[in-house]
């Protein structure tokens, strides 16, 4: 009972926040709404006793990805009027995408639920169940190849992103840090001993 009440409260807040992402005029506000949406999604996962997923969602998306989003959005001067002019042009595509997603959701929730009667609600987990341990137990044994392939793909993405943005232009001045650290005072400084001069 309490679980369902909490679920609907947080799901409602999440829905409102997601609407805020779409409808807010200010891009920084939109990003903050998205952060709020992620937090509520994390709470829903906590309600399903998936604490690892919930905390990782906050750690990765809220703590890192959205910080970089905010970083970029703060730097941009977004022209709201220009964005609104494009609305009619992109509307058919947007509606089509929304329809596809709605069909997928119905498929997952409704049709699968009919076939598989277990999906009626959250299955209560046994005492002492740890989501983190359960995930680790399958991730490093059954799905170890998929896990490693994902890691390699991410590594490739990192290298690709760095290669795309790294631009060597001629005449670039670069510091040799090892050289800077190894510098001693006598390399830069010459102490001169001289007699006192007469006051002018």
């Amino acid at each position, binding site marked *: 009972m309490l679980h369902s009440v909490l679920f609907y409260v947080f799901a409602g807040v999440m829905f409102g926040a997601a609407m805020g992402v779409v409808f807010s005029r*200010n891009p*920084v*506000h939109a990003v*903050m709404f998205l*952060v709020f949406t992620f937090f509520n999604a994390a709470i829903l996962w906590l309600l399903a006793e998936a*604490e*690892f997923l919930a*905390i*990782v969602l*906050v*750690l990765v998306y*809220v*703590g*890192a990805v959205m*910080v*970089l989003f*905010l*970083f970029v959005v*703060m730097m941009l001067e977004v022209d709201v009027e220009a964005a609104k002019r494009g609305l009619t042009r992109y509307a058919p595509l947007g509606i089509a995408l929304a329809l596809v997603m709605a069909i997928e959701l119905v498929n997952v929730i409704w049709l699968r639920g009919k076939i598989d009667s277990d999906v009626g609600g959250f299955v209560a987990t046994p005492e002492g169940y*740890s*989501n*983190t341990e359960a995930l680790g137990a399958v991730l490093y044994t059954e799905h170890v190849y998929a896990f490693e392939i994902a890691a390699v793909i991410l590594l490739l993405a990192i290298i690709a992103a760095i290669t795309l943005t790294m631009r060597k232009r001629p005449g670039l001045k670069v*510091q040799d*840090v090892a050289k800077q650290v190894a510098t001693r005072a006598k390399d830069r400084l010459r102490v001169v001993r001289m007699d006192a001069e007469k006051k002018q």
Partner: protein
Amino acid sequence: MPESLAGPIPQFLVDFWNTWPPVLQYLTTTLFKILIVTVAVILCVAFSTYFERKVIGSMQSRVGPNRVGWKGLLQPFADVFKLLFKEVVVPSQSNRFLYVVAPLLSLTPALATWAVIPMNDWFVIADINAGLLYVLALTSVGVYGVILAGWATNSKYALLGAMRSAAQIVAYEIAMGFALVGILMASGSLNIGDIVEAQSGGVGNWFLIWLFPLFLVYWIAGVAETNRAPFDVAEGESEIVAGFHVEYSGVAFALFFLAEYANMILISTLTAVFFRGGWASPLEGFALFEPFHDTAWIGWFFGGGFPWLFIKMCVFMYVFFWLRATFPRYRYDQIMRLGWKVFIPVTIVWIFVEGAMAWLEVGPWAGAGA
């Protein structure tokens, strides 16, 4: 709670307590624990400002605050009242809502992280299994306060400070996370209480010894994460005035101040918990101190507990102030180089070394058969 503490409570109160429904009992005890921890943290913040000024004063051959109260001990309260009565000036071109929310966003994670930190073997607000992840997640959320404050004030200096801070925190978080992976491998648990238990049995079992490079990385990354000197480019009072909080005054500024010091205390406590055995007493395992364990009054001190955690925390707070009085500010590109090109490789190498140690069963794994 141990039974010994329940002794002095009169019987009628115990009976009255037992008539409450369990949900209400749980809520009351949790709220009471939260109150204790929050008040303790805020008092620690107040006195650490005094501690800082005295330490830096003595390092610079000054006396530090000595006017308000005995030896200046009431100075923090004088500062608090001054800040409370000051006017909060909101810049006219600022984004008012985010301007007000930003200090709260930086304070909340700093206080909420204390929920999973065990003070001794039974006092912890939430004994959750993924405690270490929770700590990592919340410390990474704290950056929003800084970024939003910088953006919402609509000032160039504040925006510069916010950008520096964002890049710095994102960079050092990775090194910090990797250092904690080492802790995870050594203790085999994400629960912070279990991590402390894994280090019990004397100084030789502290992770400080076996994971020394990770300890250095974690501590320095922690200093960078709290934007303290020598990594205080986000504030940089000599170049960008006060960075992200340049336009904040009065209570709003006090909240940022509170958040910064609460974060420092948090990092000090976490370093003590992860690398120096938390509440465990360093005197454990020495035959010389064995007789004291059963002695009345002083036995609880020698047996380990909150006093040791507090002492360890104070040592790290002292190091914070020591660093501030000793080092000049890092150059921005050097901060980035240190984070990405030095710390992350160091942690990755040490994780492999740890793997080798676990395989050969040396160090914390000796005899454990893990």
